[in-house]
């Protein structure tokens, strides 16, 4: 974050802040409206014109999400699906990324190309075969269905991110360990992996966000309330006859907060690793 250009005249600086301020207003107004709506009692919801601030702000909606809807189940399911798929994805992608970053072997180039191209596969293309395959395997409406699916989504890009990170770790460290008689796997586990913690963290957040946000496959591969995930649960609240916007916004806030917490603590790792793949530094 080195400043590149500094407008000399104060008027230019003012324009800068005004532009940034306008952009932030467009970001923050919807966010604040979400919070205000969640704080409204039901009587305020359908008043015209809409009230900009609730008559009597209440946290009832935040409680109702868990008492009137099976959101505790949705959360448990989302966490199980996403944590498991993130973990599995990390194990496989860090192994393959290390292999690609350190060894020359036949098929290395094709593997890297495949990782890139798999970003292009439309999810609608996979959803139909998955629907059938998951049923044939007897995994329909189970945790395994979504875990498997999310691994297939996240593993290619996770491998790419980890590959970018491993490349930045000097090979001399590996060589020193090898000379000391360590096997390649041992070198990887005890020398390279501990040094790669920032990269692993960034990759894990990426996989987590991707899984946490996923809607289409969760919609199609689960059917009972005790298997649905948070996005599906929120999505079906809007199909109801009378939409309870305050409950819906409270549920949405619950869905966003985990990602914000992750992001606030770990943004430095994430941004640098995400961009490592796309930008040559």
């Amino acid at each position, binding site marked *: 974050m*080195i400043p*590149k250009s500094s407008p000399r005249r104060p008027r230019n600086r003012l324009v800068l802040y005004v532009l*940034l301020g306008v*952009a932030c207003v467009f*970001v923050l107004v919807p966010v604040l409206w979400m919070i205000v709506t969640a704080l409204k009692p039901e009587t305020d919801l359908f008043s015209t014109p809409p009230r900009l601030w609730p008559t009597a702000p209440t946290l009832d909606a935040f409680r109702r999400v868990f008492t009137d809807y099976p959101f505790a189940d949705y959360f448990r399911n989302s966490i199980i699906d996403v944590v498991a798929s993130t973990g599995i994805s990390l194990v496989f992608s860090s192994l*393959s990324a290390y292999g690609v970053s350190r060894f020359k072997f036949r098929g290395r180039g094709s593997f890297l190309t495949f990782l890139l191209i798999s970003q292009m596969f439309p999810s609608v293309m996979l959803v*139909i075969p998955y629907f059938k395959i998951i049923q044939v395997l007897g995994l329909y409406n189970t945790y395994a269905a979504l875990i498997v699916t999310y691994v297939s989504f996240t*593993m290619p890009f996770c491998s790419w991110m980890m590959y970018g990170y491993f490349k930045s770790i000097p090979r001399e460290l590996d060589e020193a360990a090898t000379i000391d008689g360590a096997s390649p796997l041992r070198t990887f586990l005890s020398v390279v992996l501990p040094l790669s913690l920032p990269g692993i963290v960034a990759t894990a957040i990426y996989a987590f966000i991707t899984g946490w946000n996923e809607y289409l496959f969760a919609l199609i591969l689960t059917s009972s309330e005790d298997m649905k995930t948070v996005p599906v649960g929120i999505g079906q609240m*809007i199909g109801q006859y009378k939409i309870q916007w305050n409950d819906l916004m409270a549920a949405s806030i619950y*869905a966003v907060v985990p990602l914000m917490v992750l992001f606030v603590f770990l943004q430095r790792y994430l941004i640098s690793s995400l961009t490592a793949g796309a930008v040559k530094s």
Partner: protein
Amino acid sequence: MARSSKVAAAQQRVGLGFVSPSVLVLLALVVYPLFYGFYISMFKTNLRNMWNFVGLKYFVQALSDSDFIHTIGVTLLFAVLVVAGNLLLGTALALLLNTNIRFRVVWRAILILPWLFPDVVVAILFKWIYDPLYGLLNFALTSVHLIDHPIVWFGDPNLAFSAVVLSCIWKGYPLVMILVLAGLQSIPQDRYEAARLDGAGLVNQFRYVTFPGLVPVLAVSVILDFVWWFKHFTIVWLMTAGGPIDATKVVSIDIYRIAFTNFDFGRAAALAVIVFFICLAFSIVYRRIVRDTEV
């Protein structure tokens, strides 16, 4: 000689050892389902008891079906507008954030915020804001007397389309902004110094240093973002479900409906294969650009 070939053989063995678990997983979870999708596309099937082989009938049908051509047109327009919006906004904000401002971290955190919103939440939040009776947008517009009567945003094809595009830009620009910011930071400082020594002002510095330095990042962003939004489903589905009168029926919604409402899985799979080839064409361009910039 013998030693170096031994080393090469060891490299081969160990490298494959590290990669093979992932290769197996990718074969099982990505490659096999892709081929199975091709297979399904050649049958008239409900995926249960009816499997009538029809060959390439659905492909021929789709390419001469004016409805499908229209859907592809809508999807292209949708993707192009969202990507253009993301690119303009993302680049402009990245340039602003890259200047010598106070509280940069705070500005950046706020501007990245929409990226952390799940698609489902974005869709629902904007559906609420666009609500004709109780929505914030109509309220704001009537308060400043821009309109007299509330507008039913999702009742008119053009308005609905624009409303969806704007919501998607809200969600989509931060990723471009992050990529461009990283691109800006990878431009060496001394190029700016050289330009200043040559007497270049801010405009010329942008023209001859910043912009050329950003071209690779912008090219990659355009293509990744385009493919991403071309196949997008969730926000559009939850906001309009493709309506009104198919104005927002992007190809993912078309495929979803044909498969999971009409249970015409073979035809849906065929359309998905066509989308796959459109995305593949873009990915080849993408690959070429990445290779060219990796100097």
